[in-house]
């Protein structure tokens, strides 16, 4: 899985690797237009990461948007139903507000969606694909899972209004136990309920222990069923060998209008923010009038640029300087033999002043090594080989 292709950035390499992974599970590439009618996003603003959408009026007078999201577009167009499942992956550019610079940015996003009858088998497959996607980066990763039905089931059983519920959820999401306890005390809930809810932000950790703690506070059948489902899915992922990177975090709760059931996030060591985010969004399918469930995830390719990488010390492995009077056919043949041995080779009459190279060759009828700047050759160029291995 750890394909290293010379010259590719992390995001490009990931795109190639993950395409082949998703194809191997029978997912088909989905391509969509750069523009969508703005109405789709206006009606589902809380599904988007930001409410700001770049719009323009098309020549036929329709208000269009540069798509800020891919899932909504796929869901709108899907023919999936209870009897027909659709499994797709995408690599698309989306146009979003950048919170730091307060400007619009075009970013690459990759992801997959499974729409139709989503049962535990489909969910386990999507979770396994998320885990495999993260593991493919060759760095430590964490796949964090929750079943939203647990917390939603808990809140629905409480005598509080929608506004208070939203306040509780906001504090749970931030793991803000201090303010949550204060809020609960002011809502007139029973001591038992207060105690139970205030434990949610810290209901985090490896599956077994966390599920035991969750079971201890599961007061309703809905909560028990949610914890059981999570336990079943964790069992599958552990059997597949992903137990080590698995965490449960019941404080993860997405927008309850769109999402339900299993939701998850992926982290890669070294990245400041999450690298992958996904979940079940049956609520959104219902809002779009589709008789189908859905689950999927997105990988934030832009974030991958933050992954620590080996600094390339050289632009090319070898620079070959040639005499224009010499035998050009032999020159080309000798240079090709270097390339066949895995080196990147640039051929010039004189050395370009800003070019960093490891080996300098001169060709005056035959190729001779004139300079070797790679004291730690293997680290000097990505994918390169030691001089003795190359045999030059």
């Amino acid at each position: 899985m750890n394909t290293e292709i010379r010259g590719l950035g992390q995001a490009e390499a990931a795109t190639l690797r993950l395409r082949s992974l998703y194809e191997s599970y029978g997912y088909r590439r989905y391509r969509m237009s750069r523009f969508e009618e703005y109405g789709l996003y206006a009606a589902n603003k809380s599904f988007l990461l930001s409410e700001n959408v770049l719009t323009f009026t098309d020549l036929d007078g329709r208000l269009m948007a540069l798509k800020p999201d891919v899932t909504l577009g796929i869901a709108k167009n899907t023919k999936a139903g209870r009897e027909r499942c659709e499994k797709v992956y995408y690599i698309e550019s989306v146009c979003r507000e950048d919170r730091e610079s307060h400007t619009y940015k075009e970013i690459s996003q990759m992801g997959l969606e499974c729409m139709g009858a989503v049962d535990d088998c489909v969910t386990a497959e999507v979770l396994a694909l998320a885990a495999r996607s993260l593991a493919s980066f060759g760095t430590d990763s964490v796949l964090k899972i929750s079943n939203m039905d647990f917390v939603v089931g808990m809140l629905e059983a409480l005598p509080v209004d929608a506004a208070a519920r939203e306040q509780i959820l906001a504090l749970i999401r931030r793991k803000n136990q201090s303010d949550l306890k204060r809020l609960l005390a002011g809502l007139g809930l029973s001591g038992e309920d207060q105690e139970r809810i205030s434990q949610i932000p810290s209901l985090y950790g490896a599956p077994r222990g966390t599920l035991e703690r969750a079971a201890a506070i599961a007061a309703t059948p809905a909560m028990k069923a949610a914890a059981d489902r999570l336990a079943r899915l964790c069992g599958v992922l552990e059997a597949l060998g992903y137990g080590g990177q698995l965490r449960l975090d019941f404080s993860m709760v997405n927008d309850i209008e769109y999402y339900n059931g299993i939701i998850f996030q992926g982290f890669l060591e070294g990245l400041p923010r999450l690298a992958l985010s996904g979940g079940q969004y049956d609520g959104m399918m219902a809002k779009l009038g589709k008789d189908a469930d859905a689950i999927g995830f997105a990988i934030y390719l832009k974030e991958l640029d933050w992954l620590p990488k080996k600094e390339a010390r050289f632009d090319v492995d070898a620079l070959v300087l040639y005499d224009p009077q010499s035998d050009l056919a032999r020159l080309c043949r000798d240079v090709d033999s270097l390339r066949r041995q895995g080196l990147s080779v640039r051929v010039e009459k004189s050395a370009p002043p800003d070019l960093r190279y490891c080996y300098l060759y001169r060709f005056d009828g035959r190729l001779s090594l004139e300079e070797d700047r790679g004291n730690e050759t293997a680290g000097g160029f990505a994918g390169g080989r030691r001089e003795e291995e190359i045999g030059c």
Partner: protein
Amino acid sequence: MLNIALPKGRLGDQVYELLASVGYDCKSIYEENRKLVFENRENGVRYLLVKPSDVAIYVEHHAADVGIVGKDILMESRPDVYELLDLGLGRCRMCVAAREDYMEDRERPVRVATKFTNIAKEHYAGLGREIDIIKLNGSIELAPILGLSDVIVDIVESGNTIRENHLRILEEFLPISARFIANKSSFEFKNGAITQMAQRLGEAVARREEEKKKKEE
């Protein structure tokens, strides 16, 4: 090694004392110099001294794993971080204040001078009252005196500055205190160290509150 973004100034000093009291001391921090990074390898901490308003930025962008920041800054900039603990230090409140003789004109929007534009907008939106915002960076109390604004939205600790400038508090709407925050990615990969630090701090805060209560009794 945990990177801790510590706010420079009085709050930072109080927070450091608290952290040092629960096993995260770093003696070199007392040295008189212009260094901004202090490290104690033995207890696995590295302190980064930063401007208070930048603490959350360091943490959100992963330059620091954890940090200590005022609730006012968290409410204003809404960084994507976990807010793990209320340290109960640097207590004050967000207030609306105006000249002592101020009478609200309900026919027009309220002119609000503040450093905290998002907090002010959210507060007045909750009241259904239209406002004009005047963003200032300091000496906010001057604005109503000079007729620049009708009211100010600002942090009040003792209330002395308000009184000395012949202003009065119309409303207190947000209690402020220092919060222990964590980067979301660090929370996953350094969970043991972060949870332990939060737990020790939580116990120290509870002990302090207990002692305070006893004294009051």
